[in-house]
């Protein structure tokens, strides 16, 4: 039972990461990852949408006939996103002004309907909730990683404009990674997003291969020790 939950966590964050492995939701991923704060903002909004839509869809899955399943899912997702958009507009106005046009686009993030159809519509609510949470966090992780990469290379800073999300106190959070940096336009513009994502996926593949190679080696060590004794 526990392993099933840990599988959900591992899948969401790494093995089936929606951005790095499933390559879903690329439109928001590439458009909004020019700074860490933008990435974090959209990532959290997407996570919230995934958690709510997955939970609701799992709860109603037994009342929805198969024929109208997809329209109902779309309806649920659209309502959830609209409510999140209104809530952000009311309580995180600064961030809303930056992410504004991308929030309705969460609806079009195929990983949301993807998780609804492939997972939430077949599973208990607690598992669907967890799946939504970790798929969302995995997506946020991708956005934040790509965001830091592009922000450091593009403008030489990190956490710029954090006050839009965390209030006035966060104004001092900005780190000038490279001082007196004139910036590299390519990283900020859309091509930088594609190149950055490509590099990150390559890095993930290298890590995965390394981990695979190391696993048999780890088993051999105790045997060698035994032989020496």
């Amino acid at each position, binding site marked *: 039972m526990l392993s099933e939950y840990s599988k959900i966590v591992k899948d969401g964050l790494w093995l089936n990461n929606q951005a790095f492995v499933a390559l879903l939701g690329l439109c928001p991923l590439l458009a909004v990852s020019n700074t860490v704060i933008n990435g974090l903002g959209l990532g959290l909004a997407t996570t919230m949408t995934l958690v709510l839509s997955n939970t609701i869809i799992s709860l109603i899955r037994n009342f929805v006939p198969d024929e*109208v399943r997809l329209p109902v899912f779309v309806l649920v997702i659209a309502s959830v996103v609209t409510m999140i958009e209104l809530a952000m507009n009311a309580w995180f106005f600064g961030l809303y002004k930056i992410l504004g046009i991308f929030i309705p686009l969460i609806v079009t993030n195929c990983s949301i309907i993807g998780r609804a159809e492939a997972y939430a519509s077949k599973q208990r609510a607690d598992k669907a909730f967890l799946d939504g949470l970790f798929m969302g966090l995995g997506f946020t992780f991708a956005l934040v990683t790509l965001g830091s990469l592009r922000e450091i290379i593009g403008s030489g800073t990190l956490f710029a404009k954090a006050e839009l999300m965390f209030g006035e106190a966060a104004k001092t959070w900005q780190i000038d990674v490279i001082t007196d940096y004139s910036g590299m336009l390519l990283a900020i513009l859309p091509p930088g997003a594609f190149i950055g994502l490509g590099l990150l996926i390559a890095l993930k593949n290298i890590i995965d291969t390394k981990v695979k190679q190391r696993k048999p080696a780890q088993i051999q060590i105790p045997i060698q020790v035994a032989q020496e004794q």
Partner: protein
Amino acid sequence: MNAIIKNTLSAATILGIFSLLGLGLTSLTFHKTEAKIQENERQALLANLKAVIPESLYDNDIVNDTLEVTDLNQDSTKPAVIYRARKKDNPVAAVMTVVTPFGYSGNITLLVAIKTDGTLTGVRAIAHRETPGLGDKIEIERSDWILAFDGKSLAMPKTQEWAVKRDDGYFDQFTGATITPRAVVGAVKNALLYFKHNQSLIFSTTESTPEGGN
């Protein structure tokens, strides 16, 4: 046959119920957040106005004392809003929402505040899609460039010098970006000319009531 109709009807009913639920929840959220969102927008506008014209200069409800004109931004489909600052009912300054289509990528929207004597109290870029790192230096958060307009008028520098240095004018351009500052200087100059020719008209109508002003 009957079974098919029954199935279809029940599926349709369920879809209908979910539509109503979604609609209900969304409108509930809308009503809960509406006031807060309007207040946010008003505060954002006030903060922008405060940046271009000192609050001490006027005592009227500047956000609601507005005038819409169609001949200021000739390429724009929407009428331009002019906020009028008055002290003891006397005109003090006008803050104009100027849109220029000559930016590097799309429209640049500026707030231009002009005192009745024709001098600028401030200019701010409030919306644009200029290149990050180059053209976005018109934002006050990124560079002081936009402050160069403070205190200027059509007399200082002279009308023909209202251009960037590249065009033998008075104003600096940025390294690597001439188009954006050229567009902004041109738009501010247009606003000054418009104000000069229409000043009496701009202040002629009295303060609109809160119900009428929008």
